[in-house]
C-alpha cells in the first residue's frame, strides 16, 4: 500500500516537476546585450573625446615646443617648466636676461590660451613668418645657453598634425628653411585624430 502510494506520488511528481525555463537567462542576456549595443551606438554619437595633451611634454632632457597644425592654422604651446632652473644654472647676465624675456613672452602666451573661453580649435592662426622666426631664434638661444652653461636642456619642435593640417605644417617648415636658427633644432611629428580636442587648462606650470 505504501509503495503504491509512493509510486503514485512519484508519478505525480513526474508529471508536475520543476521545469527549468531558459527564459530568465535569455531575458537577462538579451537585456545586457541590448544595453551594451546601445552604449556602443551612443559612444559613436557622443561628444568628441577630450584628451588632455600635457602642455609641458618632455623626454629626459629634451623638452617639446608643441605646435598644433590645424586646417585654419597653428596653435603654439611653448614649454616653460625648466626655464627658471636654466636661468639659475647660467652665470652670464646677458643669458639670464635673455631667458627672462623668453619666459615672460611665453607665460603671457600661455595665459592667453588658458583664458580663452571659446572652442580651442578657433585659436588656430595662420603661421606668421616673423612669429615662426622668433620661435626658432628663441629655441636656438635657449639651447645654446644650456650648452654654454653645461646644463643638460634642449628644446625640440613637436608638430601635432590634424587632418588637413598639413598645409599649415608645410608653411612653418618653409619658413624654417629661411633661417640658420632651425638647423640644429630636432623635429618630431605626430598625427592627431580629428576627434581629439585640446584641453588647455592649467597650462602655465613654469617651475619656481
Amino acid at each position: 500500500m505504501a509503495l503504491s502510494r509512493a509510486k503514485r506520488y512519484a508519478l505525480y511528481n513526474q508529471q508536475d516537476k520543476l521545469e527549468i525555463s531558459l527564459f530568465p537567462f535569455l531575458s537577462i542576456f538579451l537585456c545586457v546585450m541590448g544595453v551594451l549595443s546601445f552604449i556602443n551606438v551612443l559612444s559613436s554619437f557622443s561628444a568628441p573625446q577630450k584628451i588632455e595633451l600635457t602642455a609641458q611634454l618632455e623626454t629626459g632632457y629634451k623638452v617639446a615646443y608643441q605646435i598644433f597644425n590645424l586646417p585654419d592654422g597653428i596653435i603654439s604651446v611653448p614649454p616653460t617648466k625648466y626655464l627658471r632652473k636654466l636661468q639659475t644654472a647660467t652665470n652670464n647676465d646677458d643669458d639670464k636676461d635673455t631667458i627672462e624675456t623668453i619666459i615672460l613672452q611665453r607665460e603671457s602666451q600661455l595665459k592667453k590660451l588658458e583664458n580663452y573661453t571659446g572652442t580651442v580649435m578657433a585659436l588656430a592662426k595662420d603661421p606668421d613668418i616673423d612669429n615662426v622666426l622668433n620661435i626658432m631664434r628663441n629655441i636656438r638661444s635657449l639651447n645654446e645657453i644650456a650648452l654654454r652653461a653645461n646644463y643638460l636642456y634642449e628644446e625640440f619642435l613637436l608638430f601635432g598634425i590634424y587632418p588637413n593640417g598639413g598645409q599649415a605644417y608645410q608653411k612653418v617648415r618653409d619658413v624654417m628653411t629661411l633661417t640658420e636658427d632651425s638647423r640644429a633644432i630636432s623635429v618630431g611629428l605626430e598625427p592627431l585624430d580629428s576627434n581629439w580636442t585640446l584641453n588647455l587648462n592649467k597650462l602655465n606650470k613654469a617651475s619656481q
Partner: protein
Amino acid sequence: MPNNKKNNVKAPFRLLKANWNLAPDTSLEDLLSHAQNKLNNDPENPELIYNIAEIQRHLGELDAANSSYKDVVQATHVKTEQRSLALENRLKRARSHTHKKLLLVTLLPLLAIALIATALWNTLAVPEPIPEEANPEKFAFTEWLAKQQMVQIITTLQKQNPELSFDFSRQASNKQSPMEFMQSLMREDAIQKMKRDQQNAKNNKDAKNKNGQPLFQCSKEAAISCPAKDIPNAPGERRKEVVLLMEAYRSILENEQDCEKIESSIRSIGEQLQWRESESRIKADLEDFAVECFYRTKNVEKTIEHARKLQCTGDAGYINSVYWYLTAINHHAGDTNKAETSYQCFQEATNYIEKNNDFSPAYVASRHRESGALAWLYFNDLATATNELEKARNILKRIKKKTPTVLEVAGEIDLDLLETYVTANIDNETFESLLQDINSSGRLTDGYKQIKDTLVTIYYLQNKQFNKAKITLNNIASRFKLMPEYICGWDWSGFKRGLDDSINDPDIRQQAIKMVDLADCYVEIPNNDRISRTKIVKKWLQEK
C-alpha cells in the same frame, strides 16, 4: 408552494409576452407559433431557440424541446466562434496599431538623430575655404606689387653679381608665383647655389682637354689611362630633368650599405643614360658613393677601382675626394709609400683648385681642413695638421658673408682645432673661447655634442678640474640614454696616439683612453655599454 412554483414558471413567459407585445393571456401554443414565426426571420438566434425549447417543454413536447435545446447549443457555438473571430480581428488591429505607434515613437527620433548627426559631421568635416578676397596670394594688387618688387630685387642682384645670369625665360615659363620666386631667392644660400650651379656647368665644359683626359694631373704619379666606358663623353646638351632625377637619387644611395648594389646601379644607369660630357658631375656623384661604401667595408681593391673611375669622370670637384680615399685605403693596406704619394697629390689638388678661382672659399677651406686631418691621422704630422687648419681658418675669416656652407666648414674646423688644443693642453682662456664659439655655432648634432664633451672632459681631467669633468661626464651619459643611434664621423686614432705625449699622469691618461674608447662611433657597441663605461670613469672621479 405549488402556486409559487406555478407563478415562477409563468413569470418568464409573461416577460417574454410583454417583450413581444403579446397579451398576457396568450396561450402557450400561440406563443410557440409566434416564436417559430420569429425564428423564420432569425433562424440562428440562440435566445429565441431557447425560448421555443422552453415553451415546447412546458407544452410537454419533450422530443421537440430536446431538439431545440441542441439547436441552442449549436447556435451558441457558432456565435461564440463568431465572437472569437471578431475579437481576434480587433486584437490584430489593435496590435498592428500598437506596432505602428512603437515604430513611430522609437525609430523616427533615432532616424532624426542620425540625420542631424550626419549633417553636423559633414558640415564640421569640410574645411572652410579661404575667401578669395582675403587670400593675399590671389589678390590681384598684391601680385602686381610682388612682381614690381621682384623686378627690383633681380635688378639689384644683377648689379651685385655681374657674373651670374638670371634666366627670365625660365622664370616666365615656370609655375612659381612672384611671391614664391622671391622667397626662393631669399634663402640664404640661394645666390651661392646659383653661382655653384653655373660654375659647375662651366667646369663641365672646361674640365677636360681635347683628348678627354682630366686637366689636373698629379706630378707624383703617372697619367692614368681611363677605359672609354668610364669617361662620360657622349655628345649632347645637359638633360636638365635627368640630372635633377639623378641628384634626387642620391638620397636613395646615401645610406645604402650594399656596395655591390650601388655598383650595379651605376652600371645600369650608365647603360640607360649613356653619360654625356655635360653630365659628368652626376656620374662622379654616384662613383663617390661607391668609393665611400667600399672604403667603409675596407675593400682595398674595389676602393681603388672606383676611386680611379671617379678620377676618370674628370670632375674637378672630386679630385680631392679621389686622393683622400687613395691615401686612406693605402694606409689601411699598409702601403705607406703609396699613401704618401696619394697625400702629396691631395695637396697638389688643393693648390690647383685654390688657384683656379672656380671654387668657393668655403670649399677650399674645407679641403685644407681635410689635408690637416690626413696629415695628423696617417702621418703623425702635427705641424702640417696645425698649419693646414690655420690656413682654413684664415680663409674663412676673410669671407664677409657667413653662408650656411661657410658656417658648416667653420664648425668642422673648430672641432678639429679643439682636438689639437686638447692634445697641446692649451691655456684655459684660449680653450674656453673656442668652446664658446663651438657651442654657439648652432650646428652641433647629438653625435658631435658627444665628441665635443668627450674632448672637454679630457681637457678638464688633464687640468684637474674634476668637478667640471663630472658635469660633462653626466651630460654624456644622459645623452646616450636618449640617443637611438650614435652617428658621427670622427677618427680618434691620431688623438689617441697624441695622449702619450699630452698627458703625463698615467692614471689620468688611462681614464682619457677609456673616454676615447666609449666615444668611438666606429665601434659598434650598444649605448648602454657606453653609459656603463662613463660610470667607471665617474667612479674614479668620485674618489678624487
